[in-house]
């Protein structure tokens, strides 16, 4: 009995109150997409296991859509993105009451596609 009380007293309080501290550096959270770097190669769409990314051809440009409702934050898109347009951050407070906020679209400028072999070298 006393050994239990002693252990409880030694343990003290372990729960934490809001606001929580930052998530660990390696935590895979919110994606940041920089449309200026994107070349429309669609490697990320192929790699995504959750089909969260898609490209649509608009009149003057390409449109990249990402659904955070589908995203599983695995980070494969970041790995395959050669121009480094996608970056995962450790931002984790992602809850929202408005489902529309879970979809983001980006304009990708036509001039950057298609990626030419010459441009690569």
């Amino acid at each position, binding site marked *: 009995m006393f*050994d*239990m009380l002693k*252990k*409880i007293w030694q*343990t003290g309080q*372990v729960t934490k109150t809001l606001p929580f501290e930052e*998530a*660990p*550096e*390696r*935590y*895979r959270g919110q994606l940041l997409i920089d449309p200026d770097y994107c070349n429309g190669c669609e490697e990320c769409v192929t*790699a995504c*296991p*959750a089909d969260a990314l898609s490209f649509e051809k608009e009149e003057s440009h390409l449109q990249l859509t990402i659904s955070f409702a589908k995203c*599983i*934050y*695995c*980070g494969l898109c970041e*790995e395959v993105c050669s121009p480094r347009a996608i970056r995962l951050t450790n931002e984790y407070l992602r809850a929202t009451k408005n489902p529309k906020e879970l979809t983001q679209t980006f304009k990708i400028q036509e001039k950057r596609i298609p990626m030419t072999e010459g441009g690569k070298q």
Partner: protein
Amino acid sequence: MKTNNPGDQVLHAFNSQVIHFDLKNDNHVVIDIAKEHLPSITRYIRDLGGRLFTMVGSDELNIRGDFSLYYVFAFDKDQSLITVRVSVSEQEPGFPSVTDDLPSANWYEREVYDLFGLEPVGHPHLSPLVLHGDWPEGIYPMRKDFPANMKLPRMKNRDQFMNYEGEGVTQIPVGPIHAGIIEPGHFRFGAVGDTVLHLDARLFYTHRGLEKVSEGVSINKALFLAERICGVCALSHAVSFAQAIERIGKIKVPARAEYLRMLFLEMERLYNHIGDVGNVCAGIGFSFGVSQGAILKEKLMQLNEKLTGHRYLRGITTIGGVRLEFNHDDKILMEKTLGDVRREFEKFVGIMMSHEIVSDRMTSTGRLTREQVEEIGTVGPAARASGRNIDVRKSHPYLLYDQIDFSVPVLTTGDVLARVQQRIEETYQSFAIIGQILNQLPEGPIQTRVGEIPAYQWDMGWTESARGENVHWVMTGPDQTVYRYRVRSAAYSNWPAVALAVPGNIVPDFPLINKSFELCYACCDR
């Protein structure tokens, strides 16, 4: 010819019946045989010391024109495997059941009947297992002609439970929704007074059709499905799947990646075992134990998150290696945290195991004998606590476990207390394994380039998870896809043991017995 090799012995004894045989990975013989010889070859293999590792039904109508059944047997002493393959035609969808000779085949054969419509003729208890009684009869979802998105009407429920005759037997239905945050399962007790006479367990409420969904999906995407079979064995499932693919593609994983996989597989075992030792106390209302276990488990999961980015270790496995950096600072952080957790764990179990409420309630409760666990094919800590020395890390070494010095604790009493003690001793082994891995961790690449994976090849991957061995059987399809995926988790092998351990105990001890196995429903149901 070596006569002590089980594969050669079987081939020799069934020389005239064997249609074809093949050698897969040196120590794995694949034997094709006509289905009528299945019971005799099964008996022969069983008597040689083989145990059923997994059994897979596969619709191969469009490859070879029939269904295939693969009975995979493991020989723990020889580190070898034998697969017996039989063909079952669409016109005559029956095959002789082996459950009478090999009780561990019970669930596999019922599952094949449910999902493929292949009937195990002579099965002693052929009732629905995976599909519930409200599924339309005669529709078999794992056949290739059944589309994965098909919607079916719900029928009148045909589920049947044990009927009791005579006076004094009360039926107590429990679940599928429980008073607690646990998964769904329906249990029906036949009780005389306080004592349980019989337990019917109705599982597979969380059957999501994961195997069906992964068919035709690219291998890289299927890996993410494998990771989501279950929460607490996520890494074990992912590594098992990756190993199956790596065997098919003959991919050599770099040593550093294998060490890192082992490192985090042991972390998975640690957080599970420590959490489970604490959580079993919830079965006796011993809240000190519950919270102390939860605190330590939380520390380990936060460590997981810092090191890998994910508390449940998802997203760190890839075909051909790992997606994970691990540097000197990580090693220091890990050593420090695990040192603290180990010290706290020792204090905690010292207090817990010497407390009289723990020994009063756990001793001789939910006892399983060694004969019982061997007969029904129980695996993992539940089997080892009953004296069955079974651990695929030793008997069928994978990754680089053969370079690690550790022992597999085996207890004998087989009661709840033994299963808790078993986990405590395994926890100390895992601490020691992690210590060795951190000291031996080689430098070098963590991924290897993965080339083309050949189509229509099958192989297996296995890992010893915190609940026992997970065996993943994968057949590849064209263009780097999955053709057939069969997951045999530890929970699938161990759920029948729960129903066997409960009768004879009092009803209030059921939660305690159930928690002492700490089985996962999602793993079992898929």
